């Protein structure tokens, strides 16, 4: 199967070699033949977590006649900021991977063409020029086996985590260096605002977590593998900030159960968008690619490739996800323009509250 796919790819690449050669020295999308037909090359700029099956992209290339050049540039924040910095001289033709925490900064910077496929099954976004492609929740995860073994009830809400029975059990992630860390900070901002948590606000909540023995990891992998007892790498703490999909990856041997659980009352929803970059030399090809990202073919490929839920609610999910990794019914929300306006100040306030 894999071999056959590779063969197909090789054939596709061989067939495209002349095209690649012709475009090798040209600017992204600067193919003079591009026009209404949507031929030519399209450079797709993404973050490092972008992944797609070879045959899915090959299908798009075969159907549209467009050659896709994929370029990854760093994490989601780096991607967003690189786009803003290169306003007027875009890195490519299409961007994928702007999430709702960075969307308003990118949308306001004038780096996007105002295009969104009409009537796409993935829905619409509040931002001009950005189309939702996938989504996922960042939630507190618990090691259910640990809680069983210690005869302790699992926490349910954010408030529970500050209670004395959960002292020294939790691992959070630094929002300054980790995107799920930032998302969970936003969950607490959305949950408590400035006067929730008995009038102490979200910063008061973090102070309470810190006083309750919170530890903070610099990255998701560090927290999940080095510190979390359910990560299978010898960590000792049974509560960690992770994704709602994580429990689908800690199945028991026979796959009938999972050893971790996401607390669905502690979540923040991340939505990832795609858009056409302003100044593209191949607008038809770029739009065709964005259209394709909302198509069922691509949407169905997302869970297996990027660990995110497709934005199209009608696309079938992997069975493990349906069983063990549902989305939160009511995730906490923070207005995108608020995030853009306060991101830096919130991270500074968080750093202060956690006593760093």
């Amino acid at each position, binding site marked *: 199967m894999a071999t056959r796919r590779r063969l197909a790819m090789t054939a596709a690449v061989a067939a495209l070699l002349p095209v690649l050669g012709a475009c090798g*020295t*040209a*600017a*992204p999308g600067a193919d003079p033949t591009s026009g209404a037909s949507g031929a030519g090359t399209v*450079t797709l*700029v993404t973050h*490092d*977590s972008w*992944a*797609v*099956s070879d045959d899915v992209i090959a299908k798009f290339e075969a159907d549209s006649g467009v050659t896709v*050049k*994929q*370029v*990854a*540039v*760093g994490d989601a*924040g*780096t991607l967003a*900021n*690189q786009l*803003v*910095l*290169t306003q007027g*001289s875009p*890195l*490519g033709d299409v961007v994928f991977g702007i999430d709702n925490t960075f969307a308003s*900064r990118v949308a306001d910077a004038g780096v996007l063409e105002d295009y969104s496929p009409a009537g796409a099954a993935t829905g619409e976004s509040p931002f001009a020029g950005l189309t939702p492609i996938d989504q996922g929740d960042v939630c507190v995860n618990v090691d259910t086996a640990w809680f069983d073994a210690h005869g302790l009830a699992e926490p349910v809400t954010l408030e529970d985590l500050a209670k004395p029975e959960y002292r020294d059990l939790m691992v959070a992630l*630094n929002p*300054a*260096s980790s995107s799920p860390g930032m998302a969970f900070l936003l969950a607490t901002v959305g949950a408590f605002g400035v006067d929730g948590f008995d009038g102490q606000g979200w910063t008061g909540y973090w102070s309470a977590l810190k006083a309750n023995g919170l530890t*903070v990891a*610099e*990255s*998701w*992998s*560090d927290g*999940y*593998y*080095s510190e979390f007892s359910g*990560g*299978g*790498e*010898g960590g*000792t703490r049974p509560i960690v900030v*992770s*994704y709602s*999909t*994580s429990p689908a*990856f800690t199945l028991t041997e026979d796959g009938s159960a999972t050893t971790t659980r996401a607390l669905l009352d502690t979540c923040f929803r991340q939505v990832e968008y795609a858009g056409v970059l302003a100044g593209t030399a191949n607008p038809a090809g770029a739009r065709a690619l964005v259209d394709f990202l909302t198509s069922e073919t691509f949407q169905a490929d997302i869970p*297996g*490739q990027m*660990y995110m839920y497709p934005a199209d609610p009608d696309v079938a999910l992997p069975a493990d996800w349906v069983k063990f990794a549902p989305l939160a019914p009511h995730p906490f929300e923070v207005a995108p323009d608020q995030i853009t306006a306060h*991101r*830096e100040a919130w*991270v500074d306030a968080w*750093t202060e509250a*956690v*006593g*760093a």
Partner: protein
Amino acid sequence: MNRTRLGWGVAVALPLAFLGVFFAWPVAALVGRGFVADGGGVDLGGLRDVLGSPRTWRLVGITLAQAAAGSVGSVLLGLPVAYLLYRTRFPGRAVLRGLVTVPFVLPTVVVGVAFRSLFRADGPLGWAGLEETFVGVVVALVFFNVSVVVRTVGGLWERLDPRAEQAARALGATPQRAFRTVTLPALGPAIASAAAVVFLFCATAFGVVLVLGGLGYGTIETEIYRRTTQFLDLRTAAVLSILQLVVVTGALFAAARARGRGERALHLEQEDVAAHRWSARRASDVGAAAATVVVVGVLIVLPLAGLVGRSFRGPDGAWTLANYRALGTTGGRNALSVTVWEALGTSLRTALIATAIAVVVGGLVALVVSRRPRARAARRAVGLLDAVVMLPLGVSAVTVGFGFLITLDRPLGLNIDLRTSGLLVPAAQAVVAVPLVVRTVLPVLRAIDPRLRQAAAVLGAPPGRVLRDIDLPIALRSLGLAIGFAFSVSLGEFGATAFLARPDSATLPVVIFRLIGRPGAENYGMALAASVILAAITAACVMLAERLRQDRGAGAVGGEF
């Protein structure tokens, strides 16, 4: 005469053009953006705000302390190892030399994870309480950099004529005194060189600091990263970049002074001639061996053994080869878009190009800088070039990478978008490798007795012939080392590579970072297996470079001293 002048002109212009396009211009452009007000015009308000903040000075303090402790530690621990590996002969020496180089090229993310599990309360070094401490960070930095000292100092030490020290001993000096008054001053320039490089590495260390420092631990480098990539706060980042440049320039200046004082022509031997068979009766041999056992055992083998051991275990703790078998796949649930072997191919190709660029550019710089022109202005210019070429080690990869974005879209009016071309990654890696090539080749070139060149000229050899027959054969021997260094730096480079656009191809460190960031114990195990492969290949390359060097050394270029 004219042709000579043209030759030197090219030798100066080529490296300057390369470093100008791929370093100076991008950095200047990005820093410049930080001082432009929203409506245009110059805005120096950032300078006042940032320099007025106590946080800034705390960051500067930590950066300086971390770099100073890291370089002192690396020199103190590196010297005895350099002695043992380059001044004595014993079975297994080549393997040990390769092993010492391994840490230098491991991806920082992997080292971070390896040390974290050592320092953890239940880990092998948990008793020391190093988790999330300053000392913990410094230990990891020494782990990375001790090989710089060993190789740089060792390269000179092995070729130092032992007769000077023997004469001192014969005249009644104690071994300690002979070492202090004869050997140490002769090694001075190499030690200063190594210390300067290590200082720069430690001052700009990024991944290790992020993983091991914990909350509240921050340096100028991590703050520039945070301000630039997460907030696009170029105003603050620009001021911090300038502060970083000041710190780095100060260090370089101090190192140049130290080098200048101790510098003179040395009587050099062919490598390994000066080495003696290791002997249990020599106190210095035994002491060096003991120190090496501690350094290599605790600092290098312990973390590496943990890494290797874990790479052969499955999620359930049982021994297995599954992690290695998985390297031919794209990971659990397709974590990768290429297999690890394909990424390794990309890495090797990239490293080849980067090494070629670095050796040409760095070799030319070393050649120019090794000369002492008679005119004072020219001497000054040479000194300046010597310092400037080191700067890439001291400037944040983030600043360079983001600078590329705004300068390389149509460089020099060419209709090529270099930002997304496949050449950018090797070029950026070469920028980082050039200073290492210079620092490896330069001490050897500088130590050539100028009388050799003069004698050749008197005998009628034109300048080109002098270069070919005197400088080149001697430089070639250190070139093997330089190639090994440049290749391994490029193989392990992560910082700059991670910020650059990579069309369709990821290098091995990027793939490892990605595997570690994906859920699933099998991906984590695969990341460790890939790290072991990367480390093994790097060690093999370095050993090969060493072997090449020895073969050549044994050949025709024997008796010119």
